[in-house]
């Protein structure tokens, strides 16, 4: 995996400034889409009473995930170090198969494409895709 260049980081930070204020909507929409489009992801949430994409649990989870992504943006210069606690959580407690990080990343990008049709240019897309891939790697750091 390539590292994030200064240009990538700038593109992510600049775009993220536009996202400000809409995080909750974006997060809930992304998780809702993940559950609708990739039903196998529901296997991680068997403890929820209601697994439908618009359920309160799904909405709450969308907000949680998005807070994590926002946190990662602020720690973009050292994702591995900055996300150590989250990595341990995913490795030892959640044990989410890392293939699923690609899934939620894709759903997040679809939502951003809908909400920011003019700002989500191919250049911004590639920077964000790289960032989310780096984030996924940082989260999987402690897996083995």
């Amino acid at each position, binding site marked *: 995996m390539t590292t994030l260049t200064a240009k990538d980081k700038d593109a992510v930070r600049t775009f993220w400034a536009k996202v400000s204020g809409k995080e909750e909507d974006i997060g809930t929409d992304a998780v809702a889409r993940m559950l*609708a489009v990739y039903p196998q992801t529901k296997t991680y949430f068997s403890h929820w009473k209601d697994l439908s994409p618009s359920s309160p649990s799904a909405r709450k989870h969308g907000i949680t995930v998005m807070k994590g992504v926002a946190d990662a943006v602020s720690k973009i210069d050292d994702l591995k170090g900055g996300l150590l606690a989250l990595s341990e959580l995913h490795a030892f407690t959640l044990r989410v198969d890392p293939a699923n990080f690609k899934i939620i990343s894709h759903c997040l990008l*679809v939502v951003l494409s809908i909400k920011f049709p003019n700002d989500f240019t191919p250049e911004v897309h590639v920077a964000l895709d790289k960032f989310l891939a780096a984030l996924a790697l940082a989260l999987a750091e402690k897996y083995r």
Partner: protein
Amino acid sequence: MVEWIDFERDTIVDIFSKMQYEVVGPEALARCLIVYPWTQRYFGNFGNLYNAAAISGNPMVAKHGTTILHGLDRAVKNMDDIKSTYAELSVLHSEKLHVDPDNFKLLSDCLTIEVAAQLGNDFTGEVQAAFQKFLAVVVSSLGRQYH
């Protein structure tokens, strides 16, 4: 044999009836070449692909993007047998074009994102699920004749 419920059939037909082929096709292919630059390996004779602006403005990319998108029309018309609809194209992509089938998924992700931008809030989670299912069947059919 892929099972389609009415909602899925209607959704696919609806999306393609509204499709702006000359906008979405070029943008989807350009996005793929920019976001996943290794896909440029298949377009050595397309001229200037040196940066995002060049790719987005390249007329050969635009023309080919439109061609690819129209290529999906046959699947829309034959949803109950996409596998045999694309048997010949699958052979072409394998034997003549030598395209790694993983690339089909990359392009289909870019197409999903472009259609999402085009449809906005109408591109609900359920619509996305139907569209991605359709593309997954197309991708699988295109990879089927590889050996």
